[in-house]
């Protein structure tokens, strides 16, 4: 750029005008922002949000076998699995608790589970009024799964 053009640009504030033109042009284009609660973005398939527990093949109970691997891998120590012996000496998951306030949504529990019991939905809207609301027990996790998969309670699980 020679000196004259430089001086002219200086005097006529060309660079400011160029910037303003760009701003004006952008103003006339449709907005890219979404008015969030009214318009929601489509969620992506693999997004890591609220957890749910799958039902087993019979559809009557949760798929979890109580191996405790998710509890061991969880870097935030958000999961507690309690098992006990059932009437036929089998392992019964008596309690499965997931504290979402501790959870960091890393998805490690999902990756670790050897039977694909614990899974995640893309639901990220987890605001609530009480701490109790985000303390997920086994029943709540299964219910979340039913809600997400659109199945009725007790319906055939897969």
């Amino acid at each position, binding site marked *: 750029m020679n000196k004259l053009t430089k001086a002219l*640009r*200086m005097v006529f*504030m060309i*660079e*400011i005008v*160029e*910037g303003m033109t*760009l*701003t004006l042009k*952008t103003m006339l284009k449709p907005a*890219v922002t979404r008015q969030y609660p009214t318009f929601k973005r489509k969620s*992506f*398939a*693999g*997004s*890591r949000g609220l957890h749910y527990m799958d039902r087993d093949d019979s559809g009557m109970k949760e798929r979890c076998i109580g*191996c405790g*691997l998710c509890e*061991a*891998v969880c*870097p*935030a120590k958000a999961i507690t699995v309690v098992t006990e012996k059932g009437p036929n000496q089998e392992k019964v998951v008596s309690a499965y608790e997931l504290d979402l306030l501790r959870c*960091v*949504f*890393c*998805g*490690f529990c999902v*990756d*670790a589970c*050897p*039977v*694909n019991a614990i899974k*995640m939905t893309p639901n990220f809207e987890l605001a609530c009024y009480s701490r109790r609301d985000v303390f997920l027990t086994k029943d709540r996790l299964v219910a979340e799964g039913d809600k997400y998969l659109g199945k009725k309670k007790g319906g055939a699980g897969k």
Partner: protein
Amino acid sequence: MTDDGYSLTSSIYGEKMSLTNATEKEIVQKEMTINMGPQHPATHGVLRLVVDLQGETVVGIDPRPGYLHRGIEKWMESRTYHQIIPITDRLEYITCMNNNLGWVVAVEKLAGIVVPERAQFIRMLMAELTRLSGHLVWLGTHALDIGAMTVCMYTLRERELILDLTETVTGARQTVSYVRIGGLRNDVPRDFLDKCREFTEIFPKKLEDYDTLIRQNRIWLKRTKGIGKFSAEDAINYGLTGATLRGSGVNYDLRKVEPYAAYDKVEFDVPLGTEGDVYARYIVRINEMRQSVRIIKQCLDMLPEGPIMTADPRYAVPDKATVMTNMEALAHQFVLMSKWVNMPKGEVYVATEAPKGELGFFIVSDGSGRPYRVKIRAPSFVHVGALPKMVTGHMVSDVIACIGTIDIVLGECDR
């Protein structure tokens, strides 16, 4: 007055009392200590600066980091090598992928794990996307601090595209936890490559837009040129890295010097500045974004087929289908996920080029599944140390420009 800013109030009262008799000149000569931060919108988090002012000129500045200290290094000692991956997300929370990568590369070096080609390329692709997003946040906030508000709106608009891409691949926008020791969490979805290519077409045009807005803007030039100067020698002595160092003209980019992932297989230039001031570093980062786009394009073209997890059976996390059918894989999954395998004894330091600079992990292994000690060499922490030299002698409003230009994130600085 103590060197602690808390005595501020008393000093103000002291000055007020003598105001009646003091001439204006005396007031200007009087040194005043003020606190900038930790709750200050322009300190990029919770950085506290104790600034000594003489009139409006900064005569001394004392950074006091530590308000975001979470004891991450100590915390890492009680987690397995695998469980540390999400913790590294919380270091530099704007560019999580690079932290994941830095950690994983260090662990892989410790254990001598060979990572398949495809995984390397996807890692590099994602790391560059994240670098773009990190630089966009930097540009937006830096310009916002200096007073150009529009740029921030535009950069965040483009960053949204990157975050969408990231979410399709990793399942999360920010705290991705995507890279795994020996490979990746999952392969990229089928439509990702097309979307990514589309992005690389759009993005350079947007970069032009940012240039139109500020590159020649006289206010921007006045606020950035000649501010925060660092000579090449000083920059090296202060341990600056990344674009902050390259703005002073030192050609040091770990992607070139010690290539990790697949950086030795792609072509890119290392943009350098000459002046070493805020403006030079701005130009360097803008050009770095261009180079990142170039790397992404090459990645998309060269992306090889193949597995995304290492073939080394000791460290490879078996995939779900194998776990469900194969007893041995199941047993191995249990070992890996609950306590990780025993690592070789030894020490390793591996540094990677994060968007902020050299991010290094020093691991001491005692042979168990958990590190004995981890030290994180965080670029932000080192850069904060350069602030006094950078700012002293400038005006108080230049402090903001200098905080912006060293590109710090306090999550990483305080750890």
